[in-house]
């Protein structure tokens, strides 16, 4: 007689922020086997991109994920620029770097909140998500949107950072600098967090290496890889980035959930430094190599060759490959998100874990989170569902308000 039983978690489950199917084989309270089934949100975006011109695909790539809505188009633009040998002006390189780092800040803050929530520390979730609003407002001020920034174009960026925008960024950075030590204390000195995260969900160095883990998940296991330093791009050729491993702070590497918290918190401070340096050095000059889009499209339709675009997204290496054969649309487009590489490392983390630790371990690799598609407004006893148009109107009003002040 079997002494184990199977616990399905997903495809939709309160512990998960996006659809994913886990099937756990449990013995008592212990996980002895796990099977993963992704794909519940697979929208065939790569196929859609093989039926469109690269300029349209920039916006499509942006919609692969709301949180990484700068990383995917960034990697895609780099792949196309690489295939077509298109030069990018220096100012655009710096602006790309600044927005990419702002995205990392908001993404890591979002993750810290989710992690706090998964271990039942909801006060901390609200604190972190409250401070995250500052960088979201900043992104909205600069780009016009909280997510899906529409900043990128093949060969440059579409919007400039004005002196007023730069001032806003500096203010926000000061705000985060003052707050950073408080966040470190809240997360790292709390005994409850330590008990729930130390020696939980351990990923060894060898497993991280052999299972091809990326980003903070790999770095927390001591695998010091970071595309920003390994193969510098944009302004990272000038601003040196050191891959952050947990031993920078704790003098040891355990590869557990605690180490993943440490890495992301340290990276928050690193992003602040990078943005400050970029703002200091921001050169003058054009934003795009070819600002006339029909001309750019004609140029792109003549490209023959293949290109690779690699960038360090908040969750790790984001890898795009395009094969272009003098046609309007690329023949092949392969987008590899960081979570794709971090799927397999989930297994060794979850094996041997307690059922109660499943949510925090699953969340510790920071899997990409799907967005809401409608919302309910409540005020006192009245509640009603807001329409998309209403939400859009409110959001446009808020952006205008932010840009005035």
């Amino acid at each position, binding site marked *: 007689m079997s002494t184990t039983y199977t616990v399905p978690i997903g495809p939709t489950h309160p512990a998960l922020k996006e659809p994913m199917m886990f099937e756990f084989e449990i013995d008592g309270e212990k996980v002895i086997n796990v099977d993963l*089934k*992704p*794909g519940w949100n*697979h929208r*065939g975006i*790569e*196929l859609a991109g*093989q039926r469109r011109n690269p300029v349209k695909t920039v916006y499509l790539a942006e919609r692969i994920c709301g949180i990484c809505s700068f990383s995917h188009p960034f990697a895609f633009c*780099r792949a196309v620029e*690489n295939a077509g040998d298109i*030069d990018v002006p*220096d100012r655009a*390189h*710096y602006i790309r770097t600044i927005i990419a780092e702002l995205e990392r800040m908001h993404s890591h803050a979002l993750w810290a909140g989710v992690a706090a929530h998964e271990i039942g520390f909801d006060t901390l979730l609200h604190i972190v998500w409250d401070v995250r609003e500052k960088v979201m407002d900043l992104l909205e001020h600069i780009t016009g949107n909280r997510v899906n920034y529409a900043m990128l174009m093949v060969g440059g960026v579409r919007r400039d950072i004005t002196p007023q925008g730069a001032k806003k960024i500096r203010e926000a950075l000061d705000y985060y600098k003052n707050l950073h030590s408080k966040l470190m204390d809240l997360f790292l000195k709390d005994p409850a967090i330590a008990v729930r995260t130390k020696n939980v969900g351990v990923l060894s160095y060898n497993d991280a*290496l*052999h*299972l*091809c*883990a*990326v980003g903070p998940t790999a770095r927390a296991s001591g*695998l*010091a*890889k970071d595309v920003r*330093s*390994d*193969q*510098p*791009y*944009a*302004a*990272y*050729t*000038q601003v040196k980035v050191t*891959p952050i491993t947990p031993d920078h702070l704790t003098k040891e590497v355990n590869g557990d959930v605690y180490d993943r918290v440490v890495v992301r918190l340290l990276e928050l401070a690193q992003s602040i430094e990078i943005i400050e340096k970029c703002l200091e050095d921001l050169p003058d000059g054009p934003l795009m190599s070819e600002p006339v889009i029909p001309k750019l499209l004609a140029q792109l339709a003549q490209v023959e060759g*293949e290109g*690779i675009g*690699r960038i360090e997204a908040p969750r790790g*290496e984001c*890898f795009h*490959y395009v*094969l272009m054969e003098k046609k309007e649309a690329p*023949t*092949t487009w*392969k987008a*590899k998100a960081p979570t*794709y*590489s971090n*799927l*397999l490392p989930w297994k060794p983390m979850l094996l041997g874990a307690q059922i109660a630790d499943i949510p925090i371990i699953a969340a510790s690799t920071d899997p990409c989170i799907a967005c809401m598609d409608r919302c309910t407004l409540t005020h006192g006893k009245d509640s009603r569902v807001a329409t998309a148009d209403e939400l859009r109107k409110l959001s446009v009003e808020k952006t205008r308000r932010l840009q005035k002040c």
Partner: protein
Amino acid sequence: MNIHDIAKKFDGKVKKQKAGVGRKTFDTVWANVRPTEILDRVEQLIDVGFPHLATISGTDLGDKIRLTYHFTHGQATGEEFIVNFVTTVPKTKPVIHSICALVPGALVAEREKIEFLGVKFEGIPDARKLFLPDDWKGAYPWRKDGKIEKRLERIDKRRPKK
């Protein structure tokens, strides 16, 4: 081992590319590999340092399927470069050996190629559907044989007209 040694070892070409401010050059190795040799080649790459497999990309070339294994060599050393192994398999017999025994992290990329391009990987530890639904039949989405186009047309017809 530097990039030129690697390129020589695998009989590959080095492509120079420029990146970022200061137009820093970075090199990428592109090497053609026979499908029967893939295991040997990956083993040789592991001998000089365990590589990171970003993904495997696949293209339908009509009568053949082209697979590109995107490795990065020298990870976490600060001197990393991309090594691409390009191989083609005939569509009539799209079979290649799985590299999961050498690089366990290749499983996701290989399972994706099975369902999206109909490539068969010999010796793969798990050949089930990954991203597509279990009951998906009949068409490989990334094959350019018109089957998926027909499906998309059928879906378009069912959509309410604006």
